[in-house]
């Protein structure tokens, strides 16, 4: 096994061991923290597909996170008040079933990613960063004033949604669910990275003109990567909403986009487990530094600067050295 393999295994062991210990020791909040980290990791695995493999620096991934959150919020809200959506025309019933909510979250965020990607991919470089940022702001302002679903107040869901065969209100069970989904997303990313599509996408990032001259459509490859990326981040949004039993426009804020990007870079861009390491580290710092000082963001900023300036390749890069086959 490579060094990176050892680091990844240690990470997985921690993500299994720590919550189990917390469950036995009766420390439910530790499980909640771990759940938060796993959900953030899932969102970042989504971004990593666009960012690491496709080279798409999206500063608007909060859009998909938020859409996933609102898919959960709106469906559960209608189930909670026992009144359907669009009562006059379609009369769609709400639902509290997680699988249905996830499916809707994935489809909606994929659709949004398709439209946003179609427009944003006309640009490159800084323009791409900024147009994705602008789309994020658009959604943010829209949801703030969208009074039907709480506007800035957001939507509160009193009881966590259900999953067949599980009691999701038990922290360890909900955690297991999130962890399984993260595993699925990691498996998907690993497959995609090695697939013919991944080969094309990887080359599109590095030498877009080459991809065209061998008869492949690199732009469309990036668009598909962006859509899959958005869908995964959207699923994470739905889980995050369920963790908090609450959604609000802050899920769309550009700070959220920045944080998802931080997870990826903190851990290591284009490393399979980079987003996981980044999210775990971020949540840990948030927890530990937040207890130490009111001004913990200063330390967070310093750590980030240190990573960018001195430890390119993120935490995994620091621990496992240069990636194989990647920069």
């Amino acid at each position, binding site marked *: 096994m490579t060094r990176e393999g050892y680091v990844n295994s240690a990470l997985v062991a921690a993500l299994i061991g720590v919550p189990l210990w917390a469950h036995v020791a009766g420390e439910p909040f530790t499980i909640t923290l771990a759940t938060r980290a796993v959900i953030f990791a899932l969102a970042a695995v989504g971004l990593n597909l666009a960012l690491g493999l496709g080279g798409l620096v999206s500063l608007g991934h909060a859009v998909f996170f938020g859409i996933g959150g609102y898919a959960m919020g709106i469906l559960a809200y209608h189930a909670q008040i026992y009144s359907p959506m669009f009562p006059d025309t379609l009369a769609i019933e709400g639902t509290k079933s997680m699988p249905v909510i996830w499916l809707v979250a994935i489809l909606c965020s994929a659709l949004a990613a398709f439209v946003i990607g179609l427009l944003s991919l006309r640009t490159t470089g800084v323009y791409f960063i900024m147009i994705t940022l602008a789309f994020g702001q658009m959604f943010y*302002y829209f949801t703030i004033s969208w009074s039907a679903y709480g506007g800035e107040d957001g939507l509160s869901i009193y009881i966590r949604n259900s999953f067949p065969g599980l009691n999701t209100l038990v922290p360890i069970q909900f955690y297991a669910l999130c962890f399984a989904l993260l595993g699925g997303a990691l498996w998907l990313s690993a497959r995609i990275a090695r697939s013919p599509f991944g080969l094309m996408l990887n080359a599109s990032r590095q030498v877009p003109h080459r991809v065209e001259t061998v008869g492949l459509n690199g732009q469309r490859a990036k668009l598909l990567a962006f859509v899959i990326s958005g869908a995964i981040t959207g699923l994470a949004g739905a889980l995050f909403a369920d963790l908090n039993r609450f959604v609000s426009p802050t899920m769309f804020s550009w700070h959220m986009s920045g944080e998802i*990007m931080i997870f990826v870079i903190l851990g290591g861009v284009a490393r399979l487990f980079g987003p996981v390491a980044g999210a775990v580290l971020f949540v840990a710092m948030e927890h530990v530094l937040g207890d130490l000082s009111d001004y913990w963001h200063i330390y967070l900023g310093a750590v980030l600067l240190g990573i*960018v300036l001195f430890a390119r390749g993120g935490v995994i890069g620091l621990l496992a050295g240069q990636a194989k086959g990647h920069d």
Partner: protein
Amino acid sequence: MSAILIVEQVLNGLQFGVMLFLMAAGLTLIFGVMGLINLAHGSLYMIGAFIAATVAGLTGSFLLAVVAAMAAGAMAGALIEMTVIRRLYHTDHLDQVLATFALILIFSEGTRALFGSFPLYLDTPALLSGPVTLPGGIEYPRYRLALIAAGLAVALGLWLLIAKTRIGIQIRAGENDREMIAALGVDIRTLYTFVFALGAALAGLAGALVGAIQSVQVGMGEPVLILAFVVIVIGGIGSIKGAFVGALIVGLTDTLGGVFLPELFKLFMEPASATQIGASLSSMAIYLLMAAVLIWRPTGLFGVRT
């Protein structure tokens, strides 16, 4: 809606636009010359406002406060350029985004640690307070007129600096060909520090000028920063002219959209929901505009096609 009101709103849009220009000019200059995307530009704006409020509180002089704000902006700019930014010129945009995002965290929380969480107070100078009557009977705040004048003066000065002076030639050369200016014997490190400090000073100036009519508080730079990004994307990144035109377009769209969209919706909706929907739409208007511009011209109005 009367003609006077429309003229007044156009003036308001103009005033907003020239202040945005001060922010956008620095951003676009820094990107054009060094190829750097600087998210921490809003922090320099905030620093300008805080220093201005402090100096005005100590000395009572608004002029001194503005000068101090520019100096503080320039100094903070030069400091981060020499310690952090300099290492980012040769990295990709991703690293730049992250590092300058980290700088925002440090500056915001640092400012809060130093100045506390309560908003500060910066008064408009007595000479410029109160309204003035313009031809046609328009009552307009004197200070806002002064802001328009100051903004236009800075724009003119910037144009002169870049078009007519030796350092301007170096800056323009830096935008086109980095090796060439090194070959010309220009110390490129000093030039970069100067350009960054210049941009930072403009941000500090904007913070001080706007701080006098708004609240001076932590986080005040971020909304302006995002608007400044919209400006330079519309105008074309790297182009001062684009920043100027983009700033006026954004200033006018934002101001006039907020006024006219609700009126427009009132034509076919009941007033209460028209004001609400109109307001929602106007808050999204500049982003829609930006998306439209990018679809039409992916490198902005005055951007270099790559």
